[in-house]
């Protein structure tokens, strides 16, 4: 299809559409542009599904920008892994857009430029997932990073701007290290095209390739907020408005993880696997530290943000296991499980904060009685994070344990099990508080139904995905 009908190539339109509605939203002015965004995202969902079906049927999709071909031009390519990431991005962004339209009241300073920033963020993510060029990937990283910082800072007080500034430094240092790595690769091999580099970077790669690989991965680890580089995440994700926290936790941190995986399996496969156990060690530390901080957190959104730190840790447990194909399946399933569940959880937290007018776990007493849909959504998302069957989180953790035991790494299986128990502690801590009787004086502000139901849809999807997980996991079977 991409050859016969270039005008309707879904790959190109997944980048063009969000750029178009983002720009339209900017021209329309402050606070405007929700409907073009929702219409655009609905179309993008359909495009991503179309692409995933084609790739799932054994094909790959490519787009030779400018018609030059690598290494002179830039190539875009979609394999199973990219198709899965594209699908997740559109599937999370659409319900969140519907949520955000009700969340930001007219005149809310936090929502002034939400729509154009979100459009550019989604365009950057889509462009990142399809790019097959290391320098082009850097440009997409900058687009994603700056849009995310803008969303965190929007309309906030001094504390929120400080969190955004810290996030800006982290993301700039991260992409700076990545760019230095790309420059070294270009210096050593004369190309930045992934396909061209693939046969060139061999086991006897020069020292420069090792330094480059280390710099690129270190920069991306900082952007993924892997322990101990997570310092910027809790204030940024915990302080932003709920739709922004959801977008950031569900999608943005996954983009740099995707890129690490892409480099690991692709152009730097001769270099990076030497660091596999270091990655797993940091992943395990992230699970314990993030969960512990979530258990101790006073504020609800801070708790959810620390839970993101912990859940990202699972993604890094797969690196020593990559010899088995199940490891990549587990990684993709965990990306989906956490993406959907965390988006749903932050969305639910946004409802609770709007209704109770405060952001502490202690203030949730009586929430189950008054906001049953929202608390049910929170519970479903929590189920996925804990890894209870039949949720997608269960499937992801099961796959990691299976791959670990098959290769004799029982220690990884033990970490996964312990992480599930710790997740249960912080999720049940919130639920227990919500089941308590409300103080007689407590009043709840009315909350639009759309907010409750879009949070519920995301959380329910994270559980139901577990029932249809096989099709999804077959998708990244074809990583090229």
């Amino acid at each position, binding site marked *: 299809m991409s050859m016969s009908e270039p005008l309707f190539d879904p790959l190109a339109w997944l980048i*063009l559409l969000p750029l178009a509605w*983002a720009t339209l939203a900017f021209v329309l002015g402050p606070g405007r542009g929700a409907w073009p965004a929702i219409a655009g995202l609905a179309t993008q969902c359909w495009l991503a599904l179309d692409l995933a079906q084609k790739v799932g049927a054994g094909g790959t999709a490519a787009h030779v920008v400018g018609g030059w071909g690598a290494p002179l*031009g830039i190539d875009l390519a979609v394999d199973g892994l990219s198709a899965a990431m594209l699908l997740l991005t559109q599937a999370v962004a659409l319900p969140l857009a519907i949520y955000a339209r009700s969340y930001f009241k007219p005149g809310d300073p936090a929502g002034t430029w939400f729509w154009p920033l979100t459009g550019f963020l989604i365009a950057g993510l889509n462009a990142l997932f399809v790019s097959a060029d290391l320098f082009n990937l850097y440009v997409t990283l900058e687009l994603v990073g*700056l849009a995310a910082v803008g969303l965190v800072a929007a309309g906030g007080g001094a504390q929120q701007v400080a969190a955004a500034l810290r996030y800006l430094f982290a993301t700039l240092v991260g992409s700076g290290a990545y760019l230095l790595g790309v420059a070294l690769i270009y210096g050593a091999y*004369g190309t930045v095209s992934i396909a061209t580099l693939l046969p060139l970077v061999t086991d006897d790669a020069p020292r420069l390739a090792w330094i480059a690989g280390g710099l690129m991965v270190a920069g991306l680890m900082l952007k993924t907020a892997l322990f101990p580089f997570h310092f910027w995440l809790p204030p940024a994700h915990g302080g932003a408005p709920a739709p922004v926290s959801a977008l950031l936790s569900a999608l943005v941190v996954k983009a740099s993880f995707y890129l690490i995986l892409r480099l690991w399996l692709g152009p730097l496969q001769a270099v990076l696997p030497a660091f596999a156990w270091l990655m797993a060690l940091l992943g395990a530390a992230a699970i314990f530290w993030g969960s512990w901080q979530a258990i101790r957190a006073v504020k609800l959104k801070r708790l959810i943000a620390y839970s993101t730190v912990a859940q990202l840790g699972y993604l890094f447990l797969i690196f020593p296991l990559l010899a088995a194909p199940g490891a990549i399946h587990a990684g993709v399933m965990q990306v989906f499980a956490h993406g959907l569940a965390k988006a749903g959880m932050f969305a639910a937290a946004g409802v609770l904060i709007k209704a109770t007018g405060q952001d502490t776990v202690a203030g949730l007493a009586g929430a189950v009685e008054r906001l049953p849909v929202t608390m049910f959504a929170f519970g479903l998302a929590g189920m996925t994070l804990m890894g209870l069957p039949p949720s997608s989180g269960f499937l992801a953790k099961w796959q990691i344990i299976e791959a670990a035991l098959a290769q004799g790494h029982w220690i990884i299986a033990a970490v996964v099990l312990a992480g599930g128990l710790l997740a249960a502690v912080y999720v049940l801590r919130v639920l227990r508080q919500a089941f308590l009787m409300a103080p007689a004086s407590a009043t709840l502000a009315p909350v639009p139904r759309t907010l409750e139901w879009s949070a519920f849809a995301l959380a329910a999807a994270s559980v139901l995905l577990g029932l249809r997980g096989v099709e999804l996991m077959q998708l990244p079977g074809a990583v090229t």
Partner: protein
Amino acid sequence: MKRRVLVAFVLTLALAFVFLLAGAMLDLGPTTIDLRAPVAAHLAQSGVTHPVTAVLLNYRGYDTLLEIAVLLVALLALLAVVGDAPVPPSRAAHPVLQTLARLATPLMIVVAVYLLWAGAFRPGGAFQAGAVLAAAAVLLHLVGLQPGWSRPRLGLRIGLAAGFVLFLAVATGLLTQGSLLQYPPAAAGVLILLIESGLTVSLALILASLFLFLSREEGA
């Protein structure tokens, strides 16, 4: 004392990194792939005669398209933070400075137009031209002839986005040729000049905005 140890530690690490990098770069041989040959070989079809412009607007024009989006996002992030504060009245500078700025501005506009036009065959182009125009706006602001901006009105928003919209429209339209930004060689020169002209105006406005929207902070 503790701070000193920390500074020494960081400095040592940085120095070690520099030596590691320099050492690794010294034993580099010639690269496997040399892109200078293909860049030169396709120059005739690229629509321009300067290799750097050919790379930026044609071979890797897609990078440039996304970079313009990055600049717009930087401005959006700034607008999202500063909100709607009133603009302080600008202080007029010394009359001599004002006269100099009035004299320099037309010259800077001429230089910008020249840079834009020269980009096709020598170093220059939309980024440089836009930067000179933006500098002219900043100069006028510093001498008190151009007040700071408080909020982007419709006209300004259209101007800020126009260059990107034009670029995006050309990239999309060229899908009919087979792929994004696939210029037909005969029309490449005209299309690139069109894109660069639009970008000059919008980049000038974006760069000037980054300064003029922040200027109200000084009064607050």
